[in-house]
């Protein structure tokens, strides 16, 4: 009889305990309920990543800047982070009054005689005051040559000294580390970020950048931030990439994931990846705020419409 009573109690108590867990989260933000609810996007930061496949007059670039103008007019975009240096995009963005956050990719840096030469050439063509130096240096999907944190930091420190002396108005941004933890047991990005810190990143007057795409990465980076909070308190932190590859969940991402990012990393800026990632499905296509820009029926995603107030 006792065992039957114990079994019955267990049967009822375990679901009850599970329900208790649902009741409250200490910092749980509101949950996105779909298009019918009022869309609060107070956590949004005005920075969007724009890929640069076009040129002045090309349909890609013209359509992209039409949508950028809408975001800017709605007060949702002050910063443009270029996918790669492009003079036409740079000039158009500057002419619109946007702040340009440029990037020098590891491939471009390594193809040059030295990082200093690569920077100088890029800067003289596009004198942005903010340059991200490399990104996701151990991501085989975007680099022909992978780089260790030790090699990166050696070269980054040399470039830093050069830029401080020759271009003191320029702020460098460290290479953002992987936004997704490849596995829980092998979190490549967070471990790389720890190595950067051990190698002296926090002793440099640069913006600290990370990319964050997953809950695992969020937790792992948060643990590192907790450990180095005193030193990071004096640093400018940028989340240089976040987003989700499902257009129907993008509004929810800003409502639910952005507050977690803010609570854990207190960033000065968060940049959405990305405005447009091509018209063809596959790859990173579904991260885009807009789609089919090379067709007459351009598609504005839920988040884009919510940001620009264009929700029907």
């Amino acid at each position, binding site marked *: 009889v006792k065992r039957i009573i114990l079994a019955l109690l267990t049967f009822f108590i375990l679901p009850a305990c599970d329900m208790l867990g649902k009741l409250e989260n200490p910092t749980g933000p509101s949950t996105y309920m779909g298009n019918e609810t009022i869309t609060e996007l107070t956590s949004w930061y005005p920075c969007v990543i724009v890929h640069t496949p076009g040129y002045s007059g090309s349909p890609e670039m013209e359509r992209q800047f039409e949508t950028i103008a809408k975001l800017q007019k709605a007060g949702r975009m002050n910063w443009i982070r270029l996918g790669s240096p492009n003079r036409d995009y740079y000039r158009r963005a500057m002419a619109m009054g946007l702040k340009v956050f440029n990037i020098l990719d590891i491939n471009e840096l390594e193809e040059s005689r030295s990082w200093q030469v690569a920077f100088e050439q890029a800067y003289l063509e596009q004198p942005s005051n903010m340059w991200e130096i490399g990104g996701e240096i151990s991501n085989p999907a975007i680099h022909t040559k992978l780089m260790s944190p030790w090699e990166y930091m050696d070269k980054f420190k040399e470039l830093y000294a050069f830029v401080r002396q020759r271009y003191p108005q320029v702020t460098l941004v460290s290479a953002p580390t992987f936004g997704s933890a490849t596995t829980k047991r092998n979190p490549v990005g967070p471990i790389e970020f720890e190595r950067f810190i051990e190698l002296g990143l926090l002793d440099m007057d640069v913006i600290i950048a990370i990319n964050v795409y997953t809950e695992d990465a969020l937790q792992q980076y948060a643990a590192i931030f907790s450990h180095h909070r005193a030193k990071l*308190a004096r640093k400018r932190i940028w989340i240089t990439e976040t987003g989700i590859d499902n257009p129907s969940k993008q509004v929810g991402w800003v409502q639910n994931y952005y507050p977690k990012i803010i609570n854990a990393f207190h960033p000065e800026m968060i940049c959405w990846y990305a405005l447009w990632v091509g018209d063809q499905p596959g790859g990173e296509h579904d991260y885009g705020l807009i789609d089919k820009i090379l067709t007459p029926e351009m598609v504005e995603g839920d988040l884009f419409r919510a940001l620009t107030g264009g929700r029907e």
Partner: protein
Amino acid sequence: MKKYLIALAILFLPVIASGQTRLNLGADHAGFSVNIEDYYQGFRWYFISAEIEQQFKNKWIPGFAVGMLKEGRKSEYNGTYFTVKTFYALDFDHFSVIPYGGLLYGLPGIQFDRTNLLYKDGEVVGYLNVSMIRHINVSPTNIDTAGVLQPISGLTLRKYLGSFFVDGHANLRFARFSKVTSDFSDASYDEELVLMPSLGLGIGYTF
């Protein structure tokens, strides 16, 4: 080494070590606040716990309990911990008063990180942040110092109903929090020991 093994063997001789083994299940409500300047942050949450405890017949040997504690539902967001406690039961007729102390070890998630952004002309110019300090390795994570090891203590009031029992307990968890005020270049950093009280109910079974 040998004498320690002998001492351990004597301690766990059946005549000494015999006692009662119990399974406890509990649900607790916790709440506390941390403030930094005018930024007041209140935390409230529920957690569930399960533990196995051993109470020895020999009253000179304190009992011990090992268990797990889970906050919320999302492992990345909410904490998951192991607990180890030692207790001393003051037994009355079908009733016990049990003070206990112990340690909590695990990953706190990001639920205890809070930031209040400071704006000027629509731009973020600084922030106030409070967060629980992680300070110890939890090996499966591969992140240095991702976890916490914190003292806990409390009092359980237990009523026995045959082999079953119900209890109410008050618990205190001692955690260190960091408090930061920053404008990204100038900053103040402080640490504070915070008491995190919780109240809960439990049921259990004596084997």
